């Protein structure tokens, strides 16, 4: 017993924050992200025996990612969301209670930050997750492909489309100019 809890602490615990961040960005809901992280951690504990060694971060984030899509499917009464491309997502038009940025916010840094966060949050999940894993987790294309169960070519094309959309959103708000003097 204490052997497997030790294994959990060594392999999985270091990536709990990364898992929470991914869940938070995918679900855009704090309570849901907490529940999904709990679920994914327990699942990881149960399947520690199936882990083949190496870096456990992609292994654990894959569990988190799949738990997130399962959650989204449950909430929207749909099936097989995890295999969809962003065009399919746009057809589905998933709705949730995401709050709008505060228009009265006057601080330059906070305005830029709000725009960046909003722009990422506005991406459809297949594009949002590759941005989170690439830019916030610093993962390689291979690792992202492993987490999202997609070919490396799809990782690269989704990153490209995600960046195009972010560029468009951030240019409109002038975030590019505002961030110039960092």
């Amino acid at each position, binding site marked *: *017993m*204490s052997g*497997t*809890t*030790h294994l*959990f*602490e*060594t392999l999985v*615990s270091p990536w*709990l*924050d990364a*898992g*929470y*961040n991914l869940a*938070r*960005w995918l679900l855009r809901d704090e309570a849901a*992200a*907490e529940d999904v*992280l*709990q679920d994914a*951690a*327990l699942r990881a*504990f*149960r399947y520690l025996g199936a882990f083949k060694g190496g870096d456990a971060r992609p292994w654990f984030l894959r569990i988190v990612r799949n738990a997130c899509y399962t959650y989204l499917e449950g909430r929207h009464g749909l099936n097989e969301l995890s295999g969809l491309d962003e065009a399919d997502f746009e057809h589905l038009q998933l709705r949730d209670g995401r709050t709008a940025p505060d228009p009265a916010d006057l601080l330059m840094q906070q305005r*830029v*930050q709000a725009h*960046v*966060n909003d722009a*990422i949050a506005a991406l459809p999940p297949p594009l949002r997750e590759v*941005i989170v894993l690439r*830019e*916030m987790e610093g993962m390689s294309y291979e690792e992202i492909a492993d987490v999202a169960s997609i070919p490396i070519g799809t990782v690269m094309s989704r990153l490209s489309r995600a*960046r195009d959309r*972010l*560029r468009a959103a*951030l*240019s409109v708000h002038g*975030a*590019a*100019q505002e*961030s110039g003097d*960092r």
Partner: protein
Amino acid sequence: MSLQDDELSALIQSKARYHRASEALHADVRARVALAAAAAQEAPKPERRRSWRGVFTQWTQAAGGFAVGVALTLMVSPLIVQWAQTWRQPGDADLVAEHVRSLQAGPLIQVASSDRHTVKPWFQGKIDFAPTVLDLADAGFPLTGGRIEQVGRERMAVLVYAHRRHVLNLFVWPEREATPAQQPSQQQYRGFNLLYWHDGQMRYGLVSDMDAHEVANFQQAWRAHRLQP
């Protein structure tokens, strides 16, 4: 003016919000894993008579035990004080130390069942009293199991409950002198909310990280179930 890829990356990396799990969420995950590990045990282990020195040794030997450093800090001072003291009723420090130890090093549960007709008889022959075992699932506090613990000089029955993401340890030990039943009293110790009461035969100590009002709800549910035939 459009951003290059590397400028965009730099912007995201500096400005995008990285969400970290709260301390409470980290603790909850560890507690649930400890619970799952305990539930995965095939047969209840024979209870160990454990001195405080033995607990300390187990802690230091459990290399990689969760937050051993933090837990040791929490436990060392009460241990030293305890060692020097003559027999007294288990107090806040003792129960909290045992609560934390059970969540981090385990075992949390020796008999895993939500059925009080399984948990209560399990204690028979292992301790010299018969604790009242109630399942308060309809009030949001399901029974998850039990164990036996040596806390100081008292051999206690511990009933383990869950409430949302909280793990509750309800310590039960027999009253030594004939005293009338007392009103429950709430205590705070290192951020944990404790609840003590006794019913004339048994003493109870509830330890958890629930809010005070959730602790009060537990006490109400216990009393309501206790009064049922």
